[in-house]
């Protein structure tokens, strides 16, 4: 009931359609998805009193928070270049399918695939209307930078959270944009960027770039080794991951990490209305909590 009243009140503050907004929920209200984990597990049951939020260094009053209830728009940004041909492409399809089947009725799914070319495979579609995931064929070079930039440059809906799960298996080989430009675009968007990379080691992908993208958008990075290790007696054997669901857990983990986020709402007070706003959040409860959110927004 309380949430309904808050939403009704917020609706009055919402901008007219077409008005330019970043991740502000209204003219005077900012929404901030925040992940709180402890020992890698989501922490539920927090209240507004448990958070300290600063906007450009000025402590703000949190009007309201919600947990898990705000619908999600998920954009899967998947590598369809030549290097994923075969088992890896099948693993991506399987993982994407896992996400589709986990969507709630009011969540939406989009799929963007990229080689050198960036193409929408599926436009934003509600869970019930989205057909089984189909991708490929895999061919061509890799424009991951351009794909991420294109994926996050989307109008932010007023009543939803946006996340992108990006999958790749290597370095960019064809983008026009460099990494710095993509980070700048991502930090101005409202989309949390989660990256799943299949790589033998963190040096086989642009890990530093991925980390920075995740940091500024409040996402996460997971490197999945393309092999599995088995122990038989004293022997350790490794073989290339070819089974079709070896990416499922990583995709689902990213999705659930975003699902189980608080959404804090506040009306910026005591700060300049325009320009870039740095935002920091911490949990004031005793004990070590890992807090992850966007690092700011553009007004």
């Amino acid at each position, binding site marked *: 009931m309380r949430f309904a009243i808050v939403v009704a009140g917020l609706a009055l503050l919402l901008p007219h359609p077409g008005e330019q907004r970043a991740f502000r929920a209204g003219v005077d209200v900012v929404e901030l998805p925040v992940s709180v984990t402890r020992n890698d597990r989501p922490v539920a049951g927090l209240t507004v009193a448990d958070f300290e939020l600063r906007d450009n260094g000025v402590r703000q009053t949190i009007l309201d928070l919600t947990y898990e209830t705000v619908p999600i728009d998920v954009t899967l940004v998947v590598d369809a270049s030549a290097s994923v041909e075969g088992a890896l492409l099948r693993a991506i399809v399987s993982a994407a399918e896992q996400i589709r089947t986990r969507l709630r009725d009011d969540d939406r799914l989009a799929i963007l695939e990229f080689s050198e*070319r960036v193409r929408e495979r599926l436009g934003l579609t509600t869970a019930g209307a989205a057909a089984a995931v189909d991708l490929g064929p895999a061919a061509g070079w890799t424009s991951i930078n351009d794909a991420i930039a294109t994926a996050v440059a989307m109008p932010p809906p007023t009543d939803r959270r946006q996340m992108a799960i990006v999958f790749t298996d290597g370095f960019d*080989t064809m983008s*026009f944009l*460099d990494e710095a430009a993509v980070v700048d675009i991502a930090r101005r968007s409202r989309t949390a960027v989660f990256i799943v990379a299949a790589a033998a080691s963190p040096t086989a992908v642009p890990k530093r770039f991925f980390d920075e993208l995740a940091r500024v958008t409040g996402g996460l990075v997971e490197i999945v080794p393309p092999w599995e290790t088995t122990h038989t007696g004293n022997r350790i054997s490794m073989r290339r991951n070819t089974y079709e669901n070896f990416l499922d857990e990583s995709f689902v983990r990213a999705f659930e990490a975003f699902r189980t986020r608080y959404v804090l709402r506040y009306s910026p007070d005591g700060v300049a209305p325009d320009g870039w706003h740095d935002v920091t959040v911490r949990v004031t409860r005793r004990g070590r909590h890992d807090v992850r959110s966007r690092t700011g927004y553009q007004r």
Partner: protein
Amino acid sequence: MSRLLAALALAMLVIAAGRPPAAQFAPQSLAPLFAAYASGDFAVVARELTSAVDFNHIREKELERTIAEWKEDRRPVQAAFLLDLALTAHNRRWDTWLDVICMGREFLTSRPLDAVSPDDDAFEIAWHKTSIALLEGQRRPDFLLGQGLEPLAERMTAAAAIGAERLVDPWIEVAWGRLYEQRALVGTTLPPPRNCYSQSRRRPALPSGGTSMKNEGPRALSHYDEAARFPSTRSEALVRKAWVLVQMGRPDDAIAALGAIDQPFGDDALRYWSQLFRGRALAALARPDEAVAAYDTALVVAPGAQAPHVGAIAVELSRNGRDEAYRRAALVRRPRDPLATDPWWVYWSGDFRLFEERMMTLRRLVQ
């Protein structure tokens, strides 16, 4: 058992009946392939050589001996044939295709420099440009250096020393510049190829873990500056120089380089890149209106291109032009022409975009 034998016999009959008509040549043999090629059937290699086993047989058992015989009776068509043989192997992903490039070049350059004719010189330069275009398409700077540029540079140096100036072409300066650009883009150590190249002395290694434009940029620039002195290579040299300068954080100099272009572009890719790079340089100089205008001019040259829109998205978001950024992003995601290609995609492949045209020229020269 008799049923099994009967089924087997039937299966053999079916297989026999399903066989294609006997080929005109035995494809495992080099001589008939070359004879057809030399008579003007330039498609014969691609058409008849369909098996990696046959190709490897030719490469391992026949090619060296045949080339030795050809050296006694040299004709340009022999070198053209070797390039077509390499092309077929490349297109069929037989990973020893590079061997044939290597053998073809060695055959061609074993021609004495002091006994040359203008036609032979023109053919030799055309052959090198064609083979290097194919090598550039691999985006393997180690291939390009070891199998293309180093040997050609040696050849040109030797030719210049005896006054055979027709074998010296400023085009090689642009190609050297492109090599250093390619090196800067390669992020990881490349796997060694499995071919004659790996055993040869020409095995230049890239720095472990790759390199960067900071290291390679100055070397590329020095070659582009040299190439810019010649009318035939000036436009490409300046366009590519501009892109290197953008990546080195010198957008002012990039604009100056583009402004110095006073020769025809020659092909639309160069014209397109010049606007694309102008857009990027202007964006770096915080001149968003001009940057977007340059990107839009690039789109006039290549209407379905992706890169100008992506560049404009970055510009628009940096100045809070969100609606325009979203509009352009939607155009990238759902293009009007889904099959349109972007000339940006061939930038890093150097002259590969001209390979087909050069191959046809080469075939014309041997007719």
